């Protein structure tokens, strides 16, 4: 209880004083996760839509693999990205290891299966409702995809938020590929891990509360922006 109280006080104090280190790692956390989310959405949403409306050989196998990859262990992703980006690895020449870019790459790999899988399920459900109507109305392939994505925008937003949640709270992969370097690759989660290791539970908890607050604010802001609860505006 003492640690919890201390954590809350620390969180309040860090926020009230606008601690410069806190601002820096919070902004970096947001920068890495939001960039990864945008990249992952651009890859995963068309992939999920394609799998939902196109029939081809091995489609079921791909969907099963995609669903299985939702539980991809971040540490393993981190390890693989580390090997690929290390000096002796195939992408070592780019010098990306221990940079925010490496962290973004790792997060994209973690987010894609989750967003693609939710997109696939959402679009498949809407497609099964709309299929006959779309064919009857003579909608082109592009028009069909537009309608599916537009009418599925709220569940797709939820898919993105799930991806954001997975990314913002991720520590294993970005610790390995980012290295938790102060003023370079340190983010909220790696800072929490560091402070916990040092035994400063109060500060670690304070950062933890700020991380939770951040996740709630981003989710709430997106819901407000997208007006997800106001069906009358459909």
């Amino acid at each position, binding site marked *: 209880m003492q640690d919890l109280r201390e954590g809350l006080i620390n969180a309040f104090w860090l926020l009230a004083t606008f601690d410069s280190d806190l601002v820096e790692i919070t902004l970096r956390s947001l920068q890495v996760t939001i960039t990864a989310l945008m990249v992952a959405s651009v890859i995963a949403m068309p992939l999920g839509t394609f799998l939902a409306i196109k029939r081809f050989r091995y489609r079921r196998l791909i969907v099963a693999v995609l669903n299985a990859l939702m539980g991809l262990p971040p540490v393993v992703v981190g390890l693989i990205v580390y090997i690929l980006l290390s000096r002796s690895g195939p992408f070592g020449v780019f010098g990306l290891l221990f940079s925010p870019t490496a962290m973004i790459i790792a997060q994209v790999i973690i987010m894609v299966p989750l967003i693609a899988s939710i997109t696939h399920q959402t679009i498949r459900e*809407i497609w099964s409702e*709309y299929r006959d*109507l779309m064919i*009857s*109305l003579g909608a082109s392939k592009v028009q069909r995809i537009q*309608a599916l994505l537009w*009418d*599925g925008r709220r569940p797709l937003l939820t898919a993105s938020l799930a991806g954001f949640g997975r990314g913002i709270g991720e520590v294993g992969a970005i610790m390995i590929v980012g290295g938790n370097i102060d003023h370079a690759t340190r983010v909220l989660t790696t800072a929490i891990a560091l402070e916990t290791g040092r035994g400063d539970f109060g500060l670690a908890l304070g950062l933890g509360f700020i991380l939770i607050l951040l996740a709630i604010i981003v989710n709430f802001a997106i819901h407000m922006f997208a007006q997800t609860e106001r069906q*009358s505006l*459909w």
Partner: protein
Amino acid sequence: MVSALFPLRLENAEMRRSGRVLVGPVNLELLGEETTVIIGPNGAGKTSLLKLMHGIGRLSGGRIIWACSIDKARYRQSFVFQTPIIMRRTVLKNLIYPLILRGQSRPTAETLCKEVAEQTGLTGVLGRDALSLSGGEKQKLALARALIVKPEVLFLDEPCAVLDGRSTREIEDILKQVAKVGTCLIMTTHNIGQAQRLADNVVFLLGGRVHECTKARDFFNAPQTTEATMFLNGDIVE
């Protein structure tokens, strides 16, 4: 006036799924005059036959020939499904969707939409989420969306199957108005009363095959086949 899409000819048209024959072989000629009702018990193949005619069902054999090209014919048709397919949008956006697909501007589409909404009694609910409508209202919306493109042929698959008496009457009134202005209606039903109220021509379907194709008054007064007589008497026919 008969639409230029007719006559519609089905030559040995057949639809099979997983080796099972759903429809056919069907040989039929529709001249597009007045309202044609395809009647028969559940599982007779009415919906499959209607979907074949409209082109959303895949032919397994035979041919379906319109008087013009298939693309032209499809453009001038609409289809109302037994269970209305409602898009996750407002009623207004559902209504204007076919027009937007056809390249109409939004203001033009909205003007046309108001006209159809008035005809179908949807004016008061245009701003509402379409999924929140009652069953009867949803079917009216599906009908209005089909009518908004001013089709020459309107296919209706048991449009009142899940509706109560009042909603059925409202839908039938709209259909009578539509037929009066020259739209050819081709609909399915297993409701003998509805067929008697709406049909000018009847196609009696059983086991995927056409057993009778005749004028409605002849069919109801003097059916030519035993199966049709049994069906009209309310007996179970398979």
